[in-house]
């Protein structure tokens, strides 16, 4: 199914809205497969969870809408992107990561039994104790000694 009309807009307070039955409705997006198919299977629903629109693939929307929604998703799906690793140490019950990220330097902690998880596209993701997600690039994008530090945890 493809859509021929633009369905979305942002209102003045920056809220995404969907045109539905002659009305603009405040809308939220939930991705069915946030890690494996981030641009497909999107559910558009209101605060209560009532679904107004379900899109199998973002390209089914009009070009303008699909651009707008892609940008919007880019904004909300932000994860902290690791670009370099200074050290990874073990403390009692905790593993401590000292990393450089696209957003700045950061120290974070995970449980000892949590490992970076491999997602499609070769990247790794790990969630820290607070619930923040850190995205670690493919090993080949890291320096040699950084690869070594990480290899015990991911390979």
């Amino acid at each position, binding site marked *: 199914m493809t859509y021929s009309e633009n369905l979305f807009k942002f*209102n*003045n*307070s*920056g*809220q995404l809205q969907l045109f539905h039955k002659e009305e603009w409705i405040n809308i939220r997006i939930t991705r069915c497969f*946030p890690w494996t198919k981030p641009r497909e299977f999107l559910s558009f629903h209101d605060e209560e969870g009532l679904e107004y629109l379900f899109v199998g693939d973002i390209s089914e929307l009009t070009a303008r809408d699909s651009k707008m929604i892609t940008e919007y998703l880019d904004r*909300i*799906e*932000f*994860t*902290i992107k690791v670009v370099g690793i200074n050290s990874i140490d073990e*403390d*009692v*019950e*905790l593993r401590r990561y000292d990393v450089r*990220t696209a*957003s*700045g*330097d*950061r*120290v*974070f*902690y995970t*449980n000892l*039994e949590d*490992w970076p998880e491999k997602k499609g596209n070769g990247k790794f993701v790990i969630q*820290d*104790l*607070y*619930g*923040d*997600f850190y995205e670690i690039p493919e090993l080949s994008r890291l320096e040699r000694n950084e690869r070594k530090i990480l290899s*015990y*945890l991911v*390979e």
Partner: protein
Amino acid sequence: MNTLIKEYIHQEGRLPDMIRNRIKENIYLYALADLDSEKKFSESWVIVTERCLIIATKENIKEVTLCSIEEVKEVHSLSTHSLIFIKNHDCYPLAEINFTSRQKIAMGHISYLVNQMIKGRSIDYLECNSDELYQESVMRPILEAQNSIAKKQSATLVRLLKYLLPYKKSLIWGALGAFLATIVSLAPAYISGLMIDKMIRPFQDGKLEASEAISLAWIALAALISCYVLREVFMWLRLRKMSILGEYVAMDLRKELYSHLQRLSMDFFSKKQTGSIISRVSSDTDRIWDFIAFGVVEVGIAIITLISLSAVLITLDWRLGLVMTLPVPIMLFCIYRHGEHMKNLFLRGWRKWTEVTNVLSDTIPGIQVVKAFNQEEREKKRFNERNDTVTVEFNNIHRSWTKFWPALMLSMHLTIITVWWLAIPRLFSESNSPTHLSAGVFVSFLLYVTMFSTPIEIIGQMARMLNRALSSAHRVFEILDTNPSIDSSKGKSIELNVKGDISFKRVCFSYDGVRKVVDQMSFDIKAGEMIGLVGASGGGKSTLTKLLTRFYDIDSGEILIDGMNLKDLKLGSFRKQVGMVLQDPYLFHGSIFDNISYGMDEVDRRKVVEAAKIANAHEFILRLPHGYDTVVGEKGHTLSGGERQRISIARAVLTDPKILILDEATSAVDTETERKIQDALDKLVEGRTVLAIAHRLSTLRKADRIFVVEKGSIKEKGTHSELLAKENGTYRKLQRMQKEMDEAFVV
């Protein structure tokens, strides 16, 4: 706390004075916004005062008056969260702040407070210290993972060693045995050298009579024998004293741990995994035993041996002695490095290993599903794949250590060869030359050299052993240092004969500090009243009952029992007067009789049977092969949900509680059983204050009043008919839906 926050997460431990000084008004609450609009880490502070919301960075300050804010919107996505302060939906927001999950709890407080303030409600936060609230919020996840923040390792060691103090005597004997055994084991090599230089050589040179030489040799032999015997006696002393001592220490720790665990509150157990708690009591204390029984002494002996060996070697012959001892530090360093490398390999091996065991713990309990979907082949493949990778990993580990130790030994042999190489010219030199080496000295020397390798190995592994023992000790102390969040020894601890009046006054509660599961709830229940709690699941009904029984302490507000604050009551005696029948009751390993009378000191068997009869359990119990003696619980006879339910009802009947809580007591059983349980419950509720949670409204027909609980607050309350009379009422809607369902089935 302040410095911990800096040390752990590199973030300010409190609002910087520089900003604080620029704010005139009293600060109610603040939090850190650690992302800017570009999603870069930054530092700006969000501060709530009496009239304003202030967003301050080190450079500038932006104020928004609270009365201009109409709504606070929270937007959550994977790693970032925003609070948006809106004046009017058609214009640009007044302010938008972004932060990571790290600040979520603190920001949750801000959002809640601002919301309450703009709605003109009174606020309980104002009593709190803003610094403490901020620090608690930010450190909470770390403190939960690591209850007592890692102290210095030396402090942990000292604390562990303190457990040895009650056994000072054994310790002294054990250490003495170890020390003497070490010293004595140095003697045989010396005696052997002596025999060569003072008896064999002089005899061969004809300087000594045969008979004299032989008698001297017998003496030497006797000395040798006594050395060996003494050594083993001392060894026995040490092993025996230390292993028994270690067992006592481990026992003390286990005892202390278990009794401390019993004092800890529910939130501790819901945060920690059961397995982790169990392993602290079992394997961690075992490791500590190992360390005390062998580790401490082993390392001590190794150090003494190595030092005294080096000293002996150097005094025997300083040139050869130096050749032998100088490489030792290098070897020790190599062993240490190797240990670190192995640690990483083991980490990886362990990770792969958990993947294997995960398959097992996944499929074996779910074997029925596997078979039903005919997935045996796939599961086999999945298991084999992981089994293969773990084997590769373990073989890597083996390759590494099997390479290392022979290489180390080879270098040891090389030093010995060097010793020979240097010794040969000196052995064959003139006996009066200054560098001459006598055969006896050289033999002693070689014998000492063979004693060299073991202590080196032990010292090389010391770091790892110490680390392991200390982290076990730490995990144990961590539990011992956790304070029960509900401390019944504090407060007034009044013994109360409960009548059964309950009242909640603006009670707030949250499990995680973020989401209010109970939000400003207030109600009164009179003694003897039966209250039905209904509403969608997740609404907070069960939580309400947990607060009433004080499994969790409320965040703000008050719970009164017969007009007295719940916190002032003696917990144990209060809980005894509250009965609970839960949806999925837990039976301990033991007989049915034990399970019904659990928690009672002395029970009249007739009363137990009586209770079982009231609970409609008597019949089915008698149908079991061993009657009331049937063993149930893990590994015992398996009872169905409805049967276990009736046993737990019998339990409640027997304790004769003043307040009774029924949490979906009939939801997991078939209609026939439900009727029996319902019948039992009807008998049970007479004359008690009852809080009954049910999603089948028909089971609440006896309730005096019904509370509809939704999203942490009470949406409707009143009698059955009052609630039905409400147009658009939730209860009415529920009632209608259930009726339709029932009718659909009747056909």
